Every structure is written in C-alpha cells, then in structure tokens.
C-alpha cells in the first residue's frame, strides 16, 4: 500500500472516449467494402488487380515519404490505405494499373505528405490524385506505349464494355431502369457499379458518427432540386457519376471539409451547384471530383465567415425573461 510507484499520473481529463483516428479510418474502409465487393463481382481480376496496385502504392509511398521527411511512420492510422482504396474506386476497372499507382502516389506523396501529413492537407488526397491524372492525360500517350510492355493481361470480362451511365444520360441514350442503375449497374468507375452499396457504407458512417449527415444531404438535395428545375430526371442524376461516393466519402473527409455545421451547409450546397453546372453546362463526367476540389480550396474562407461567437461573448440581450431555458423535451 505504501508503494505508490505504479501510479499513473497525467493531466485532466482522466477519461478518454474510445474513438481514435485509426479506428475511424478502419471503419471508413469497412464502409467501402460493399461497393468494392460489387466491383470485384463485376470486374473480377481487373478490380482486384487495380485495388491491390493502389493499396500497395499507398503503403509504399507513405512509408517512403515519412522516411525521407524524417517523420514517424503513420501507416498504422490506416489513412494511407483508405486513400489508396478511394483512388482505386475512382477509376474504371480496366484502367492500366500504373495510372492507378501514379494517382495514388500523387495523392499520398504530394497532396498529403508534402502538405505536412494527415491533418494539414488542404485538398482531399484521393480526389487530388484522381483529378491530376485527368489533367495529366495528354502526356500519357507516349508513356502508355512505353509502358505497354508491362501491362498485365487479365483476360476478358464482358461487363466492362458497357457505357458509362452518366455519359449515356448526357447523350440522351436509352437508360436502364432506375432501380437497376441504383443497385447494380456496371459502367464508369468501380464505385459507380452500385450507388446502393456506397449509400449503405455512407449510412454506416453516419450511424457510427464519423461523419455528419449535413454535407451529403446538402449536396444530394441541391443536385436533386437543381436538376429537377432544369428539367432532368433528378433520380438518375443522383445515382450516377460517382455522386454518392463524392457526397458520402470525399466531401465529408474530416481534414478538408469545414469544421462547423453552418460551414458544412455552405460547402455542401456549393458543391451541389458546381456539380450541376459541370454536368449540365459542360457535359463533364468528372464534375463531382472537380466540384469538391474547388470547394476544398474555399474551406478557409468558409471557416472565416462562419466562425461562431463564444458562449461567453457579450450578447445584445443578456437578460431575457426568466423561465426561458432551452427545453429539450416535454
């Protein structure tokens, strides 16, 4: 009893919640499992190969950059693997593996680690990597022929010849039924294979309180209303073109979205407006990615205008009538 050697001493508070960044990241990866499985079902070895290539690149890049920058390894927080998986899901399954790997390298090396590591990046790393590849595409023609020697023959899968639903939508082609498109329709990026699976993952994240419902709802709501006004079928718009993945997994990224609720609403609505603008005005199929990245850049400005006052800030009316608390239930 007199031996107090083993006592733990540290500052208050003495309790901790059971949430850690790595647990949250693991949960997000878990939430992506359904759509990944759907993609693997449709695209088989193509999907598996691309996902693996991105995951491996993610891990290697993270370790390499941390080492070069003389920082502690942070692979255990799973954020690198999550980024790798997200990058893979943004590509169509037949993309050459080195494109996925390059996008992942840019995502983790440039967009995350060079910016200071997790928490300091301004842009969503996965989207940054994906969109970089689109912008770099003109340079790929020589690269492609040079690297074709290393491309891997994975056999053929007949589903991959189908057109992208969003492109079909924009060209006014005959569309599959809504529910088929919603639940089970390969075409475009792997994450577009099933909006339903993405939605399930997103709802799981909301249930686990890793993300708030505000951003997804304001994005989807804005897209729905605007496309309706523009005379489009809003339901088709909601389930096509990576909108679900963007709304639930990309725009809600902790690091790159506004921190308080008012900011989240502004952010979500603005993304929705940009998406509709890109889709209807420019016929771009990567509108979601561009819209989110553009708004990422505005987050500091949004934070500035939405800063709330402290509880102890003097308010105009400091003594309201007595008996006016805040009832939360009757």
């Amino acid at each position, binding site marked *: 009893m007199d031996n107090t050697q083993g*006592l733990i001493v540290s500052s208050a*508070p003495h*309790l901790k919640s059971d949430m850690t960044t790595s647990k949250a990241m693991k949960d997000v990866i878990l939430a992506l499992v359904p759509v990944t499985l759907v993609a693997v079902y449709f695209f088989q070895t193509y999907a598996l190969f691309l996902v693996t290539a991105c995951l491996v690149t993610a891990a290697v890049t993270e370790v390499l950059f941390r080492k070069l920058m003389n920082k502690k390894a942070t692979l255990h927080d799973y954020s690198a693997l999550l980024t790798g998986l997200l990058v893979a899901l943004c590509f169509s399954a037949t993309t050459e593996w080195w494109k996925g790997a390059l996008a992942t390298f840019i995502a983790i090396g440039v967009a995350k680690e060079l910016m200071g590591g997790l928490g300091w990046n301004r842009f969503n790393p996965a989207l940054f990597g994906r969109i970089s590849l689109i912008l770099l595409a003109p340079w790929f023609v020589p690269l492609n022929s040079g690297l074709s020697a290393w491309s891997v023959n994975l056999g053929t899968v007949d589903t991959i010849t189908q057109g992208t639903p969003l492109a079909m939508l924009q060209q006014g082609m005959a569309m599959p039924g809504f529910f088929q498109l919603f639940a089970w329709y390969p075409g475009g990026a792997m994450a577009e294979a099933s909006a339903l699976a993405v939605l399930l993952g997103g709802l799981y994240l909301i249930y686990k309180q890793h993300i708030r419902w505000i951003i997804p709802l304001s994005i989807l709501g804005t897209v729905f209303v605007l496309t309706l006004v523009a005379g489009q079928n809003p339901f088709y718009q909601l389930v096509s073109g990576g909108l679900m993945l963007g709304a639930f997994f990309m725009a809600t990224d902790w690091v790159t979205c506004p*921190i308080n609720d008012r900011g989240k609403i502004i952010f979500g609505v603005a993304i929705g407006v940009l998406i509709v603008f890109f889709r209807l005005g420019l016929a771009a199929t990567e509108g979601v990615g561009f819209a989110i990245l553009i708004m990422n850049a505005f987050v500091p400005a949004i934070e500035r205008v939405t800063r709330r006052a*402290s509880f*102890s800030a003097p308010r105009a009316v400091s003594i309201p009538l*007595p008996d006016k*608390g805040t*009832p939360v239930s009757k």
Partner: protein
Amino acid sequence: MEVRTFLGGAHIPHYKSFTEDKPITRLSVPKVVIVPLSQHLGAPNEPLVKVGDKVEVGQKIGDSQEHIAAPVHASVSGTVVAIEPRPWYEGGETMSIVIEADESMNQDFVPKVEQNPADLSKEEIIAAIREAGIVGMGGAAFPTHANISQKKAVDSLLLNGAECEPFLTCDHRQMVERPDDLIAGAEMMMRCIGAKTCYIGIEVNKPDAIEILSEKVKDREDIKIVPLAVKYPQGNKAHLINAITGRNVPRGARSADLGCIVRNVGTTIAGYEAVVYGRPCYERVVTVTGPTVPKPGNYIVRIGTPVSHVVREAGVENLEEMKVVVGGPMTGMAQANLEAPVVKSNTGVLILPREMVREDVEYFDCVRCAKCVEQCPVFLYPNEISIACENDMISKAESWDVMDCIECGICAYICPSGRPIVKFIKRVKPEIKKLQRSRR
C-alpha cells in the same frame, strides 16, 4: 416532465452505478489528519493554535481578518504535532496543521446550540456560515458567506444538483437522504439573498432525487425542481444558469449580475447545519469509487484525512497500473503519491484502472474531425486553440477566445488524435493573463 439543458456539451458514460445506491456512511477516523490552513479562494488564513496544543473536533484552528476567507477547524480531537508545509492535492505543498488523534478523547462533534434559522437575522445567519468555514463544496471553494452577502438584487437561487461528472454520487445521495435539510437550507439562503424563487436543477439520471424533492415541494410556489438533461458539463455554473433561466452569462459577469446565485446542494446542507447546530465544516461526503474498488461508497470523510487512508478503507490493495484522482474524472487531479489530504472542495476519490484512463503519452496532429468543435460547451474551436497553444502562439490562442475556456475536458476526452488540449490551454492561460494585465 420538461427537461432543460444548454447547447453543445457531451454525452459521457456516467459510471455512477457503483455508488448511486450506496447510503452515506462514515469512514473511520484516521490516526493523523493534515488540515491545510487555507482551503478556500481568497485571503490566506493564519493558524490559531501552536504545536503541542490540545484541540477538539470542530475547534477553529485557522482564520483570517479578511472578509473573503473561510476559517478551518480541527477534524479530530487530539494534539497539534506540526504546522508545516504538506502536500496538496493539486500538487506542491501548502501550510497545514497536523493533528494526531487522541483515542481517549471524544471524536464526535457535540452541537453547542440548536436554533431555528427563522429566529435569526440575515446578518446572524451569514456570520454563522462564515464562522463554520463553509465554502463551495462542488469544487469551487469560494467562501459561501461572501457569496450570499451580495448587495445586488437577486431574484433566484439556483441549487446545483446536476452532478454532471461521471462517477460522482455524493450530491445525489445527499439529495435523496436529506431532502428536508436541503429545502430548509434553501429557504435560509433565499432569505439571505432576498431571492423570490429557488430552482433545484437535477439531471434526469437521478430520478429518485427528483421524485423525493418534487414530492416535498409540490405545494409550494417558491421552490421548483428543474429536471436537466444528462449532459456534461450541465453542472458548470454558467451552463446551469443558462439551462434553468435562459440567461446568457457573458464573460466577466458574476452570477449576481444576472440576478441569480448558484450553490451546490452539499454546500446548502452544510450551511444549514452550520446555522442550526453551529457545526463547522470539518467533514464532508466524498464518493470513493472505481470499477475495481472492493468497497465503493459515499463516505463521510474528515477534512484532512490522507488520501491513502481513504483508499485503504475502500479495500484497495494494489495500486499498480492505477490512476488515483481527487475530484471528478474530467477536472480532478491525478495523485503522484497518496499523502495529500482530502479538503473541503473534494467531491471524490477515484481509483481508475489503466484501460479506462487517458494518459499524456503519444498524440498526433489534429485531423479536423470537428468533434471537439461540435461538443465544446463554450462554443470555442479547441482544434485551433490546441494548435496555437502547442506552438506557443499566444496572441493567436487569445484571438480564438481561449480565456473563455472552462477547462471542462470534453475536447481532450473526445479527440481521436489524443491531443492533450486542456493541458495546452492551462499552460497558455497564465501567460495571456500576464499579457492582458500589462496592456491595461
């Protein structure tokens, strides 16, 4: 039932089941007590005894000439063996009077008077409370007589029975076991401050206390029981005022400026006993608990009892891999050794195993998860504050209103990156205070 609360705040598991049904019992009297000379906020006390003096339970042994001070009393009958600096639960040492209990002497307090507060004038009541050394027993330690001798008009007395910190149940048990004394104490205080109404705020996780007290006041207009949502930090003064009256509490304002005075329920009962029996504050109810404690309970502990005695009496043998906290788990102090004594403002002694406690070991960069921002009860941005404080960017921290922080601990509790935000804040606050003073 209308349940009130404030905006923000956190739902933290309350772990109250270990002791919430345990009736208040007495802890054995220790062989030696260490009574810190000054246990209040305000002017320091001078000793009234010297080494070798015989003292009796309840005898005044330290006092000050100043108004804002509360005397201290012997908590055992025996001999003063030392007056010297001794460990203090917040760290460091403080001048203390060490008394060795004499087993041949009576160790129980004998009431000297028995009077009805209704027969006493306001001034007599306030004098009796001062003489008894009553201070805020919920943790604030501000002398109660100074609090209730306000000149400002005050319309409401708010009794704080929220007891929002996890584990603690001492106020809960006192409300359940001594509702009549509580109500009588409330009446007495209302008279002193001239309040028309008394609101007793109780979190709804104490339904028995709400029921018993509601039954007692069902026919009266002047005392109201206000059920409060179970949310931390519901018992913080500003948040309690906000929840019950809807008034905002701007920085710098004292609660009397807002027309209300807040008292803890335990303090109210102690104040009542001080007036009726002349019983000084030489003991208090302390919740001794933890998931592995063999005999958890709500114990009446003599002021000055070493924490080691309390821990031993609760049956705890092995302290390896344990954290011993004096106070609540969110704001209390971890003890490096157990020599410090229990003082008037200590609500609990918690013995917590390593699995459940936070430690200042490894932490990571802020990932902007927004959880601290969502839950900060003062609507601050603990994420920005923590980055500014971590890098000693004093004026940046100030511009994020770090001085408004009530150090409730929610942000550090919730942070998935394990950032010791409150520790950062506590380090920076004194420097900003210095800066602000030099600006004036």
